[in-house]
């Protein structure tokens, strides 16, 4: 009970920080829109090509905008060493991690919804809206994996002055299974093969559990020094 209470307090604080500072989500939304505009201009796709490329384009945007946002939420903890107020409190490192992962998950999900909506408008691809219920499962599972790994790595790298440069190099190779699972399963849904996504969804779920277990273990060590 206390564990989830502390995690909720950290989530609430991150939402307040975002409302006050607008440092993470607004940057993510701006970058995602920028990337979509670049893809739109550079690829000049017809309706059939959009269907086959949509999933890949979306996940590239999710990945890069997500990295930017998660780096910023960790920087907010490092500024003025604010995270020490959590370290010197009854909150366990695990509840700290879960609180941060929840806030990253929430911001990522908002960014992803915004990106998909922008994609519909920019690429004139309304099909996504009709398929949203089927897209939701791989999207949510992929976002869970993204936020679990991103929370750990962004906190690790912001300790270094080159943190924001280091983050993509460490983070992206580790989340390759999530990107692969997300791109493939969402691609299948968009191309009328929703029945074939089951094994990819299973894989995403397994990796989420794995990331959670390893990250919880490592975050404690990270906090101890």
């Amino acid at each position: 009970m206390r564990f989830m209470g502390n995690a909720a307090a950290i989530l609430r604080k991150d939402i307040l920080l975002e409302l006050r500072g607008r440092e993470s989500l607004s940057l993510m939304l701006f970058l995602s829109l920028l990337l979509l505009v670049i893809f739109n201009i550079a690829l000049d796709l017809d309706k059939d090509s959009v269907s086959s490329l949509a999933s890949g384009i979306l996940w590239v945007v999710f990945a890069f905008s997500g990295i930017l946002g998660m780096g910023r939420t960790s920087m907010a903890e490092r500024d003025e060493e604010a995270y020490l107020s959590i370290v010197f409190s009854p909150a366990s490192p695990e509840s700290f991690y879960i609180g941060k992962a929840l806030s990253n998950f929430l911001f990522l999900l908002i960014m992803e919804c915004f990106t998909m909506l922008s994609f519909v408008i920019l690429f004139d691809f309304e099909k996504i809206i009709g398929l949203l219920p089927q897209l939701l499962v791989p999207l949510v599972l992929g976002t869970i994996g993204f936020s679990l790994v991103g929370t750990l790595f962004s906190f690790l790298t912001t300790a270094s002055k080159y943190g924001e440069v280091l983050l993509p190099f460490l983070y992206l190779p580790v989340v390759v299974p999530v990107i692969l699972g997300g791109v493939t399963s969402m691609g299948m849904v968009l191309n009328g093969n929703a029945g074939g996504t089951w094994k990819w969804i299973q894989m995403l779920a397994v990796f989420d559990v794995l990331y959670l277990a390893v990250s919880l273990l490592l975050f404690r060590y990270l906090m101890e020094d």
Partner: protein
Amino acid sequence: MNLIEIRGLKKQYHAKTALNGIDIDIGERDSITVFGPNGAGKTTLLKIISGIMSPTEGNAFYNNKKYSESEMKKEVFYLGHKTSLYNALTVGENMDFICRLFSINHRGESVKNILKEHGLWERRRDPVNELSQGMKRRLALAKGFMTDPKVFILDEPFTGLDLRWRSSILSKIKDIRSQGKTVILSTHLVEEGFELATRVAFLHKGRFLFIKKKEEVKIEEIYGLFDSMGETGK
């Protein structure tokens, strides 16, 4: 009984030795002031005592338990060079967050009283980044009062403050002492540090030149040491 025991502490940053062979026992209600010139290793020592930095060698115990096995981080308040505040949040929101972590009623009278005592009640709706450095330090200390820890570890609490804020922070630390808390403080301001101490230590080049009871040291002796190292201690 000793609350904190540090044994054979050594801290190395690559080729540079920041601390070498530090032993110190800190009891309940102790108030230790660690003096030393810039670069003596005071901040490193306090970070290790507070458990946020690991030593290269040596052991640290809290209530006879290794730090990692103790409840130390729940019972210590650490204020370093930075204030550990969320700058974008308001004064009230920072206090509210701490109350939630410590399961204190955030709408209770205690928050109001503490903010009033620290002269921050009128500023409760202002973002922290609009406060002066002195007010930020007071807010950081107010957080400590709110959570009622056993030990206060304060690293250079007077740094960057003008005389008015310095005396204000000094009086707050006196309040902490009068409540019977353990205080470990580092400073290069001799007068303030001496006034607050029950024991006095002088750190130089990573080693203690001495740790003595306040009665066994004359303030001139500390000024003399600072003078010999090219600093004033004022």
